[in-house]
């Protein structure tokens, strides 16, 4: 990777040399970015509460739309994943807005740091938002709509959700960076993200479905977890390779 970066007019030169050239290391930069993200989110509370509220409201809507008081198996898995996905999209839409509107990109681009740090920091931020979202949404789901008890299924459900969250975080960050400096940013974000996240939904829903079955609940098939893991890995690498190109002016 470094040889390639040196010989092609890649985004403004060799990243590791930048760190060696006296700039702070990537880890501390990611830390600084995360701290900033947390501060801004705590002050404005514009992402996480909205996402969580949206999820709970959606469960209520589903109750009326499907005319069901209790769901299990395929239907339960589907409702859960779709709701989490759409709530996640809300978070994706807001991910880079503060930076784009308040000149945060320029400030970061002027620093002698590895630009992938922003990708890592933003993906971790989105991941954190999703985890908090699920802390609210999954119990709400168990309370409002889920038929079978959640307890026994919980550990495997958490693993499945974690793999899904990683995928949404990686794809979401890439798509958010793509969409934020366009004219129709709120529309393009979801339009780009949804098809790209279909494999995650497939893997997640198929893996979760046996967990939430009323009779004979079983563990998730390894195949689906592997699919999600592979997807996360491939797109993680792609996002890492392409992100720098999105930050330039």
């Amino acid at each position, binding site marked *: 990777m470094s040889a390639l970066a040196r010989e092609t007019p890649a985004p403004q030169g060799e990243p590791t040399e930048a760190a060696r050239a006296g700039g702070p290391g990537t880890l501390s930069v990611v830390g600084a970015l995360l701290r900033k993200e947390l501060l801004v989110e705590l002050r404005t509370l514009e992402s996480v509460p909205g996402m969580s509220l949206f999820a709970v409201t959606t469960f209520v809507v589903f109750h009326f739309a499907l005319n069901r008081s209790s769901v299990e198996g395929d239907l339960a898995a589907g409702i859960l994943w779709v709701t989490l996905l759409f709530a996640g999209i809300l978070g994706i839409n807001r991910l880079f807005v503060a930076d784009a509107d308040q000149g945060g990109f320029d400030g970061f681009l002027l620093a002698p740091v590895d630009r992938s740090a922003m990708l890592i920091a933003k993906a971790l931020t989105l991941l954190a938002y999703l985890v908090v979202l699920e802390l609210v949404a999954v119990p709400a789901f168990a309370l409002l709509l889920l038929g079978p008890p959640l307890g026994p299924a919980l550990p495997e459900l958490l693993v499945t959700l974690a793999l899904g969250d990683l995928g949404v975080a990686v794809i979401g960050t890439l798509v958010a960076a*793509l969409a934020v400096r*366009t004219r129709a940013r709120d529309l*393009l974000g979801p*339009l780009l993200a949804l098809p790209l996240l279909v*494999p995650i939904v*497939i893997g997640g829903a198929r893996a979760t479905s046996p967990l939430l079955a009323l009779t004979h609940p079983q563990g998730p098939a390894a195949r689906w977890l592997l699919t999600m893991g592979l997807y996360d890995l491939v*797109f993680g690498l792609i996002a890492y390779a392409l992100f720098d190109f999105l930050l330039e002016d």
Partner: protein
Amino acid sequence: MERSSRPEAGLIKTNRRAPGGTPTASRPVAYGRGLRALSISTVVAMALALGLVFFYAPLEAEQGFLQKIFYVHVPLAIVALCGFVLGGLLAIQHLRTRDPRWDMRSYVAIHMSLIFAVGTLITGSIWAKGSWGHWWVWNEPTLVSFLIVFLLYATYQPLRFAIEDPERQARYASVFAITAGAFVPMNFIAVRLSTAYLHPRVLGSTSNLPGPMALTFLVSLVAMALLYATLCKYELTAKHARAQVRALRRRLAGEGADTTSRPRSAAPALQPTTAMTAHTAGRPGF
């Protein structure tokens, strides 16, 4: 300042070179080279394929005459998919070299593949209706994957259109093309996995074809690929010609003319270079 339109008419030639040198108003760079040969071979291949499909390939036992749509549907699908992946590869070149011509090629490849993808969906739908009675079936993983890929690539032009700065538009489009290009195979795997064990394949697989059918299929595939290549080359040639006309117009209008008159567009525009209006020895444009 008045613009004269007369010189432009005679200047845009394809595959011909004016003898000797022409004075001030230039000879264009030779583009569209090989276009005629390509078009002819495409027409020949398509005629051959059609002939084979209708007169040579045997009727399939179960589905009868309708099955012949397979020779259109599957080549369309394969060419469209390869085209999408090709668009991603061309986009990688664009990001590596920052040469806008690669972006132009990537755009055309994806644009054309999208059209072929629509064709795939339509022929697949017809086939499904004929064999299974429904205009859409979820059991056929290829068709379903295609729908998802189509929905993704349908955002390519709106994305481009939403970015005004042409350089950034090209760069973001390339990032999208690479991401989507990587997505295509992963998506197919995921959808295939999700349907394989639940329902039998409705529209049949393309492996284990008997001899005559295999030959017909191969010829159809080649014809479709040639058609794709020809259409792409036509579009690239047309865009280059348009850029050249614009460059000449600007040169005729002189310095200080209004150069921002081009409206916002999703399509990449070639940067008019001095090479377009210079007297060159005919380096092929595309």
